[in-house]
């Protein structure tokens, strides 16, 4: 496959068949009463990997982390860490630290005592603890709050204390359950990069739950998209975005246009799809045979919108009217309504300050996209 996105990563142990995964979930299920929170899930995570779990609320992300940390026992399946089965090993003997979604800060201890708690437990010398605590306070920018109690902090500050406390021990595996959700955008971005640096410098393995796609994209080596206790796709951010394996993943990450149709012809990897009101000619059709029902997924920014009709109305073009425009500064979102009522979402980068022929509401508009701009999905 041609490289996707613009980033070439040198770190890709998952592509190396000889590499041994560090954390393995083997057909793990977790059932609460009659509710299956995690459903026959298998996952391999490599040493030094920054792994993100992305999924809707209630899909079992926290449960997965809690099983790895030792607070829930898998109903079925097993979890291996560095080749060792974790079953029966209590949380306090696992080389894993977790940042709780609810923070779980000790209310009777000051910020610094909270951060130092795990280190004291380890029996680290006092001077070293003090040094580490200062370092952690700097990481989360809470130097001025060291003596405060958790109830004297804001929500975002508490979240940072929880983060610092879990990072302080520098465990081999760090599980972060929504580590940055309560922070404002600027602080979140700064902390993201600092977390990435920390992970790089110390060679830790991170498993991070997040609701924020951008955050998952920014930080992680690979992302797992979860739905109803199952993993839908595990891949690099670029692959997830450019080559989703299902409509669910395509729709979950970013925004997407899905054209439904049937495969009319196939030649090698190329395919022609007859959709309603649009014929799609693509060079990366999946292995769907002729006659199969498929969906063609195209991201908004891959679609060109023009005020003038193309010379030939070939495949991958359609005519419609401008339905909605949103100017975002760096780009403009233009929604184009096709004659059958479907709305195609596009986003146009504002490369020029002055636009010759700006589009406006109810203008005729033609959309077009290149042969390789989308993917064919069969489910």
């Amino acid at each position: 496959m041609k490289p996707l996105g613009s980033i070439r990563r040198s770190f890709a142990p998952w592509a190396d068949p000889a590499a041994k995964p560090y954390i393995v979930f083997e057909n793990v299920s977790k059932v609460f009463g009659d509710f299956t929170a995690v459903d026959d899930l298998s996952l391999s995570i490599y040493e030094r990997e920054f792994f993100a779990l992305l999924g809707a609320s209630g899909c079992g992300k926290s449960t997965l982390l809690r099983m790895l940390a030792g607070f829930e026992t898998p109903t079925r399946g097993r979890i291996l860490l560095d080749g060792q089965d974790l079953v029966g090993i209590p949380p306090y003997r696992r080389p894993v630290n977790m940042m709780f979604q609810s923070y779980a800060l000790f209310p009777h201890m000051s910020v610094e005592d909270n951060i130092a708690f795990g280190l004291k437990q380890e029996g680290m010398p006092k001077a070293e603890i003090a040094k580490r605590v200062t370092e952690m306070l700097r990481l989360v920018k809470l130097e001025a709050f060291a003596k405060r109690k958790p109830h004297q902090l804001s929500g975002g500050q508490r979240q940072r204390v929880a983060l610092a406390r879990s990072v302080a021990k520098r465990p081999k595996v760090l599980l972060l359950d929504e580590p940055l959700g309560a922070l404002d955008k600027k602080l979140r971005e700064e902390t993201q990069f600092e977390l990435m640096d920390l992970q790089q410098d110390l060679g830790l393995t991170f498993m991070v739950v997040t609701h924020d796609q951008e955050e998952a994209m920014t930080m992680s080596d690979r992302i797992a998209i979860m739905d109803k206790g199952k993993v839908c796709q595990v891949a690099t951010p670029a692959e997830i975005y450019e080559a989703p394996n299902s409509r669910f993943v395509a729709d979950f990450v970013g925004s997407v246009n899905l054209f439904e149709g049937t495969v009319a012809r196939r030649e090698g990897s190329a395919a022609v799809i007859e959709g309603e009101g649009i014929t799609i000619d693509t060079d990366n059709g999946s292995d769907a045979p002729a006659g199969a029902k498929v969906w063609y997924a195209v991201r908004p920014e891959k679609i060109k919108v023009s005020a003038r009709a193309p010379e030939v109305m070939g495949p991958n073009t359609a005519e419609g009217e401008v339905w909605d425009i949103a100017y975002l500064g760096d780009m403009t979102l233009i929604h184009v309504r096709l004659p059958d009522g479907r709305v195609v979402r596009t986003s146009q980068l504002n490369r020029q300050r002055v636009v010759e022929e700006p589009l406006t509401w109810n203008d005729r508009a033609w959309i077009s996209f290149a042969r390789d701009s989308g993917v064919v999905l069969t489910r």
Partner: protein
Amino acid sequence: MAVEAAEAKIAPVSGTGKVDGGGFIQAVTSRLVIAVPYFWLLLFFLVPFFIVVKISLSQTAIAIPPYTPVFTASDGPSGWWANVREFSFDNYLWLTQDALYFNAYVTSVIIAAISTVLTLLVGYPIAYGMARAPQSLRPVLLMLVILPFWTSFLIRVYAWIGILKPEGLLNQLLLSIGLFSQPLVILNTYTAIFIGIVYSYLPFMVLPLYASLEKMDNSLIEAAQDLGCTPTAAFWKITFPLSLPGVVAGALLVFIPAVGEFVIPDLLGGSQTLMIGRTLWSEFFANRDWPVSSAVAVILLIILVAPIMYFQRAQAQAQEAGR
């Protein structure tokens, strides 16, 4: 234009004036609401307390009531003043002269303290178990703790006589399983008093402990274990410190009434036990010395003011921290 603006400014001011009228009534009503408990305290605590203080400053007399002076409406202000000048601290001096009283106070405080510790030792595991029990079971367990209150306190203490006496249930059991060849002497000893106090005051210990343990977030224990604590270490570093407000509340709720306890030492402790409650009782009923027994009561209250104030401060702090 400017005039309009000025008017616009004035309008809300006159508006607030009207609101103030309503606010006045509201303020009076809210004061009244606060006044109710104060009035209650005044009527049923402060007034009786001053009567006791007054009696403690009087002299015994063979009369009804058995002390002088007695204030009557017919005396008039000058008569009242003459009465006030009769007041003396003789009864308090008397308390310092007989070692009996001092010993009774000290014994009472020691017995109450030991009982409080014992109640805590028994009550903590009960409260902990209740707080950890499945949600559906907790109301039943709470009910079981409160259930003894449905029977008269006196009857329950009497029942202990039947259990503890030499030929009582406990000794029969111990003898029949062959643990002892002689019946144990428990009744009429301090042990019996401890048993009685621990039994009677257990709910006062368990309930506040349960309240503080129950609201504790289990993820704190998980976090402690995650950071390397064994379950035991997590208990001592997290659970116990966080339940301290409950421990303090429970301990004081047991300690304060236990110091002045009369029924339990009287029924279970036998004649030789020296607790201030019994001393007070015998001064009052056996000796008919109301002034001295009132002085005993006032001193007892003064001894207990310190822990009561500490209790209130601890409650306020717990509320502060709980916010």
